[in-house]
């Protein structure tokens, strides 16, 4: 893993890294990835991937309206709001 890749992944992750952090992460992530390489010694050609250990599939429910938390409660943790809207910086230049 190199600096270019770190910057690409940081951008995908919406995380800003300092130059020093980039250096540390290149080293640490490379170490971890080379450890993970050991999976390639296994032949998994005919093995199905596992997502849910109990083989549950999609769970559906009746489309019945139910009460939920109140509108006031939805906003108690918002940093910025106007009336019943969350306020964010300008999206379109």
């Amino acid at each position, binding site marked *: *893993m190199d600096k270019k*890749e*770190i910057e*690409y*992944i*940081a951008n*995908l*992750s*919406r*995380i*800003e*890294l300092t130059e020093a*952090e980039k250096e540390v*992460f290149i080293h*640490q*992530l490379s*170490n*971890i*990835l080379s*450890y*993970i390489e*050991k*999976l*390639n010694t*296994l032949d*998994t050609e005919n*093995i*199905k*991937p*596992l*997502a*849910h*250990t*109990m083989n*549950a599939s999609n*769970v559906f*429910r009746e489309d019945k309206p139910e009460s939920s*938390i*109140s509108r006031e*409660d*939805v906003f*108690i*943790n*918002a*940093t*910025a709001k106007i009336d019943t809207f*969350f306020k*964010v*910086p*300008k*999206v379109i*230049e």
Partner: protein
Amino acid sequence: MKLLESNSLQIKKKIVSRELHSTDIVRHLFERIKNLEPDIQAYITTTEEEALKKAIEIDKKIENNQQVGLLAGIPIAIKDNICTKNISTTCASKILKDFMPPYDAFVTKRLKEEDAIIIGKTNLDEFAMGSSTENSRYKITRNPWNVEYVPGGSSGGSAAAVAADMAFMALGSDTGGSVRQPAALCGIVGVKPTYGRVSRYGLVAFGSSLDQIGTLTKNVKDAAVLLQVIAGYDPRDSTSLQVPVPDYLDNINSGVNGLRIGIPNEYFTEGLHSDVNKAIKDALKIYEKLGANIVYLSLPHTEYAVAVYYIVANAEASSNLARYDGVRYGHRTNNARGIIDMYSRTRSEGFGSEVKRRIMLGNYALSSGYYDAYYLKASKVRTLIKNDFDNAFEKIDCIICPTSPVPGFKVGERANNPLQMYLSDIYTIPANLAGIPGISIPCGFSSDGLPIGMQILGKHFEEKRLLQIAYAFEQETDFHLKKPALRVPLRQR
């Protein structure tokens, strides 16, 4: 002092029989918390006022001969990644510093319904990412047995609180061993139920195909009663399963005569501390004396579990943690140029370095061109690991192995080496990958006086059998009754 050393069921009995007032216990407990917290650092938030209010309510109910719940008057701590209405839930992260959940998690609601007394929210590795509780953005929890050592993690605050008698029981969460490993390092009982046994509604998501809420208690019967309360189907968690919940205390003393215990060779290889090895081998002799049979077997894909886990868990974490954008809740940066910049700065300020590392790893494994090589490959090897357990359970009833390869490690010892830290969970991760239940119980002490944990793994939904097996051992030994020699100021009785 002795009063606070009692287990949960003893305390409940005394309250219900009117030998003790719930309020007196709560007062004693908070006195102890105030004395010990500067050394142990187990709690992020304590809720003394609300706890006393609840205690008064319970005392009144008992006085009026009203019916009380299964956990009546028992003071309980909750890991700070489980939502508690109107009590802040931080995940030990700056990004959720002032987050006030507008609702209770399923398990929180159940505790309240059964008259438990919530005394506070415990420290953890940020977003439960870690094995030492050093990754918290607020404090480093210490092991009550030796404050130079970590309590394990990520439920280190819950484990330390119970071990130091600063709570009678606690809830944690276990994605790769985060209940069992700290239970082992702190000398208490930790249960990770089957994936789907306990609703995760209101548990802040980390690795959604692995996360499960578990119990930390002073003994096996306390674990049985707490699991009784939190287990069960909940339509609000689509991974919770409609399987009947048995009575966990009923027949808990049914013994282990004829039980087939599997010992996986791969768990007793290099890297296993000799004190841990000896403690487990001694424990097996006790089981044999009680009529169990030991069967040596192989779980051939064990060595791949950590690699699979750090792809699957981090891939899921990178998606789950995408929700922290500073818009609807949590920290938001003060200086942003435009919305993308706001997201990036908010997240960079809000997350600690281990969380950033894991988000980066997860996004790398899911990114275009790497998905097949990492995420898909790991998911396939996960099938092989689950098949190992399925094959083993055709010949045996349970597996016994160490919970942690070492009795403990010192604060700071592994903090700068993420890979070495990840390998702390080598014996606990496979159960999460396979979705099976596990319990860690105290089974000895190292030459340095640190507790050692033994892990018992079972088939899906066989928690009741695991509790019986654990209880049989507990009846023969007194490791669970040993207490750390904490420096308690003389003014406390």
